[in-house]
């Protein structure tokens, strides 16, 4: 009963782990632990992937992700990152409209201090 269920869950495993119950039992326990953990990790990973996709899409228009999201928050556009990444992939012109809205709302940080080059700093002898 339990053996049968375990071997059913062990399909696709490598080597003896899919056939022999003693090894399969350990591997299946580990697999179920991983799947428990990864159901929570998947939410983090997907959000990270959406952010990377939005970043790539906005940088094509000259705006980075941070400034883009700040502009959207200022305009109270409550589109979430999932939808924004889908728009940037499938509806490029709508996405450009969003980038323009964000750029109007937040043109960028004018007070940014660029790091000075070491060659420019003069050494007082």
């Amino acid at each position, binding site marked *: 009963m339990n053996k049968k269920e375990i071997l059913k869950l062990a399909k696709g495993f490598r080597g003896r782990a899919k056939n022999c119950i003693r090894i399969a039992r350990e591997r299946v326990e580990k697999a179920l632990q991983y799947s428990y953990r990864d159901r929570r990790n998947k939410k983090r990973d997907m959000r990270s992937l959406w952010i*990377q996709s939005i970043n*790539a899409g906005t940088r094509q228009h000259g705006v980075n992700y941070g400034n883009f999201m700040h502009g959207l928050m200022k305009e*109270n556009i409550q589109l979430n990152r999932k939808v924004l990444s889908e728009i940037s992939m499938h509806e*490029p*012109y*709508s996405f450009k409209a*969003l980038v323009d809205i964000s750029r109007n709302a937040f043109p960028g940080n004018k007070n940014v201090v660029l790091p000075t080059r070491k060659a420019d700093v003069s050494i007082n002898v």
Partner: protein
Amino acid sequence: MAILCASTSTIFSSSERTSFGSLKKTIPSNQSSFLGFFPVAALSKPGSVRPTTLSFSKRDFRDIWNNTWYPKAKDHINTEKTWYVVDATDKILGRLASTISVHIRGKNLATYTPSVDMGAFVIVVNAEKVSVSGKKRTQKLYRRHSGRPGGMKVETFNQLQQRIPERIIEHAVRGMLPKGRLGRALFNHLKVYKGPDHPHDAQKPIELPIRDKRVQKQR
């Protein structure tokens, strides 16, 4: 604001197919809007002639808004990828390698997927003229080990540039690509050449857009 966006998307999606060179690359191929009905004519009685203009397959009705998009095989065909060319003369090594690796990996595309090779090919010419700042030319060391005891070989940037100049850029870019099976496959998309010529004219490479303002060595 949501209504405005919906209306703009319907306007823009109808004009999606028109030519806009740089933006067209972000659209995966074969995307059509979701039709919520089957025309009755196509499901006509057996034995009657089917109209040849209507042909619907499962692919035409893919719902892109309620399913996670994952690239299909036709979204990353090697022969249809972009080829970039960049001249390494007097460019700072690390900054150039960073931009190259971003384009090879595909992180500049909105369709970036970490498990799939969606990037472009990059050709580097004039590899022996790449520069580094400070005293790295004589002080930067390239090490390799043969595996046997006492088998560490060290050479400086200068010596390696005399010997095999392509290896400098390859070493830099390989360190910035992911390590693993996919990373090794991505590395093969980098082509480095010593002089100003490259044998890839048939791929019609375009100029690599570098956004880094400090990549050119100041003289």
